């Protein structure tokens, strides 16, 4: 087994949405092969043992796909490494004796529930406003009747890999959700299946995004830099283009 290491944590503790939060300090014995969330498991085990309240944080798949985990680590959503989620971060990315600051996503549209857990239902409501193809079960034609060139299919797939984690919003000084919305709009605008609702979709989704209180985009690019799935900034240009076109058409 690899050598053990010790880290000092400053963790955001907040009892509930209304409460004031503050940082608490902890120190944890860990080792380089442990994942960041396993290090939190160790911390929580310790806190429970000491009769204290464990730190609440969201997580489920622990393999970078469900989009549930969400910690801002030393100022970076999902931590210092590129293209991974919090749950994919390992302690080998830190050094013995490091101090690590851990906070929740911060955005008005993502209120804190407790400690490091936030409410991201606003993302669901954006999808419900138009992020779909309106096709009831049973109405489909044979799949190979819809031919899609490989490069288009691949591009749509890249956009569709967004895990809805919200790191883009957290990274943005304006708390904008353009990268998230752009990813869905891009996927569906590229595909033949998405054409009939192409214009109404983009307008509905942007309206909902605004209604949820997400900020405007000022092209800082922080969202894409912090996105664990590497969703490119070009989806935002696509979103802008699609939106303008729809508006010009009076949608």
């Amino acid at each position, binding site marked *: 087994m690899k050598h053990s290491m010790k880290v000092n944590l400053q963790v955001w503790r907040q009892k509930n949405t209304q409460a004031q939060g503050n940082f608490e300090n902890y120190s944890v014995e860990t*080792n380089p092969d442990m*994942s960041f*969330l*396993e290090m939190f*498991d*160790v911390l929580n*085990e310790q*806190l*429970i*043992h000491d*009769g204290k*309240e*464990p730190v*609440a944080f969201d997580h*489920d*798949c*622990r*393999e*970078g*796909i*469900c*989009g*549930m985990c969400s910690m801002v680590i030393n100022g970076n959503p999902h931590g210092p490494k590129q293209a*991974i989620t919090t749950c*994919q971060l390992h302690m*080998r990315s830190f050094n013995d004796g490091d101090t690590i600051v851990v906070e929740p996503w911060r955005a008005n549209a993502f209120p804190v*529930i*407790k400690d490091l*857990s936030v*409410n*991201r239902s606003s993302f*669901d409501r954006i*999808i*419900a*406003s138009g*992020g*779909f*193809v*309106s096709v*009831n*079960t*049973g109405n*489909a034609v*044979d*799949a*190979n009747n*819809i*031919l899609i*060139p*490989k490069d288009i*299919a*691949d591009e*749509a*797939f890249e956009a*569709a*890999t967004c*895990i809805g984690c919200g790191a883009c919003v957290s990274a943005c000084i304006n708390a904008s959700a353009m990268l998230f919305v752009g990813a869905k709009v891009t*996927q569906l605008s590229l595909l033949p*299946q*998405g054409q009939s609702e192409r214009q109404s979709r983009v307008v509905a989704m942007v309206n909902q995004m605004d209604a949820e209180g997400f900020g405007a985009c000022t092209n800082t690019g922080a969202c894409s830099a912090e996105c664990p799935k590497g969703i490119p900034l070009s989806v935002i240009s696509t979103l802008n283009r699609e939106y303008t076109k729809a508006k010009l058409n009076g949608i």
Partner: protein
Amino acid sequence: MKLESKIPEGPISEKWTKFKSTVPLVNPANKRHLEIIVVGTGLAGASAAASLAEMGYKVSAFCFQDSPRRAHSIAAQGGINAAKNYQNDGDSVFRLFYDTIKGGDYRAREGNVHRLAEVSTSIIDQCVAQGVPFAREYGGTLSNRSFGGTQVQRTFYAAGQTGQQLLLGAYSALERQVGLGNVKMYNRHEMVEVVTIEGKARGIIARNLVTGKLERFFSHAVLLCTGGYGNVFYLSTNAMGSNVTAAWKAHKAGAYFGNPCFTQIHPTCIPVSGHYQSKLTLMSESLRNDGRIWVPKKQNDDRHPNDIPEDERDYYLERRYPAFGNLVPRDIASRAAKERCDGGYGVGPSKMAVYLDFKYNMMQKYGRTEASKHNIENPDDATLLRLGQEVVKEKYGNLFDMYKQITDEDPYEVPMRIYPAVHYTMGGLWVDYNLMTTVPGLYALGEANFSDHGANRLGASALMQGLADGYFVIPLTIGSYLSGEIHTKAIPTTHEAFEAAEKRANERIQNFLNINGTRSVESYHRELGLIMWNKCGMARNEKGLNEAIAEIRALREDFYKNVRVPGTDKEFNPELDKAGRVADFLELGELMCIDALNRNESCGGHFREEFQTEEGEALRDDENYKNVFAWEHTENNKWELHKEELVYENIKIQQRSYK
């Protein structure tokens, strides 16, 4: 109660067609007054909720995550089967049916499995129509790959993220219905009781996980789409929150539990690295298309894998099973890995791992093709490897990245180290052809039911089953029950049955909080997992199972004396959620061991050491065990066994052979 599978009469290929044209329907005006609760929003739940809402029913859907899009189905990697025969390689509905029954070691129902194979093709159509970006060929048609236990290419995929793309498709259909007001979505809610009135399911009690409040919900039918219970082993490839609670509460409310011990141990997972390990990560079965599995021929060989010459490697699957090679079904591949590691041939720091090596196919298969495509004459090894790596990167890039992230080793350069891990549960709530449990009005869909995979599931068939159940089966089969409920008015949740159910749930919660012991919930879960893995895992025997039962009982007793659950029930309290789930696992574990103990044969993933052939293969006993075990909960942790005999009229059952 006598178990009635309700399989329609007639020849196998006409059963579903006939059923569809004769099942009672509910007219649109009545549908609006019928309420359906769907617990779970994975592939099964999201597809069911969306489809039923489209039909006009009033639907409420529940999940414990913060969004329906995060159900564990999101993590499925490799692909989804369908009998499309797009590759013109001889696939057909019958062949998919046959492969699934055989793969399940002849412990699944013919009628259900044939229906599954029939609707498989419509699933792909539906998903494509929703905009699911499956992998495609240059000409624009859909691409396929192979999975274990079959000799055709029928698996559709979206890189290594097939589950994600399918779930996002179903989720978008669900959210569309939420937006239209046809589905009311309750996220961060956990079902903790099924409410029955006069023997029928009439609703649920769910805990709002943010406020801690217990809430009551009435419905005319309840659908449990709550996934599998592999986390009873603590370490598994399931998500951390996956649990048995919903199915277990249904079981206690009268639903029989089918084949609880049928567990799938997946052969290719990243091995355990330390005592702090919280879960295991799968490396998709699709990798076995291009990866060759081997161990050194010498025991305790500590050389670096790249330094071990070809003739000192034992490609044991290719050696033992020449017809299927690296693509034998999962149960067989897992046991073969265990056999090698137990024999001292394992590799890596723990010696509990085997190699999954891509070098040969990267160079010889893809490297050579690419070289000839680019007119490179006599390519050297380095060129072949480079060209091959690019192809492999496109096919499995995300999996290779995941592997590297976790192990800090580069699988393009060094073979992966893999070992079997708990992955899927074939067992689940017993259901009839309509997917109804033994409680009228209570249904189970997807991994939560026991129905289609017998004693071993073939790869890429769970996604198929979840979506088949949700999109195409339940929308029709539910009519045969709900058509009799059109006169049932909504029952107020002040009814005494709701009162009593809420009281039960509340008492359990107060009990957890009041124990105030010294041990964390997690520590009990780990200990239970270890018992299950060692004694009810890849190999089982009578002595071990009896010990396990005693140990689980003792552990359960200790849990109720010494567990510490911090916080209160009036707030967001993940430890309290976990306490409820682990308490249920502590009961389920015992039933799994009892089930395994009573099944005196080996079949599929259930390997009883006492029953094996001379070559170490599973030895079935069709005379006595060609049946489903369905357990009835009679009183506190006591069960009565019922059996459903399986009838094979269209497939000749034989000793399963992949040699």
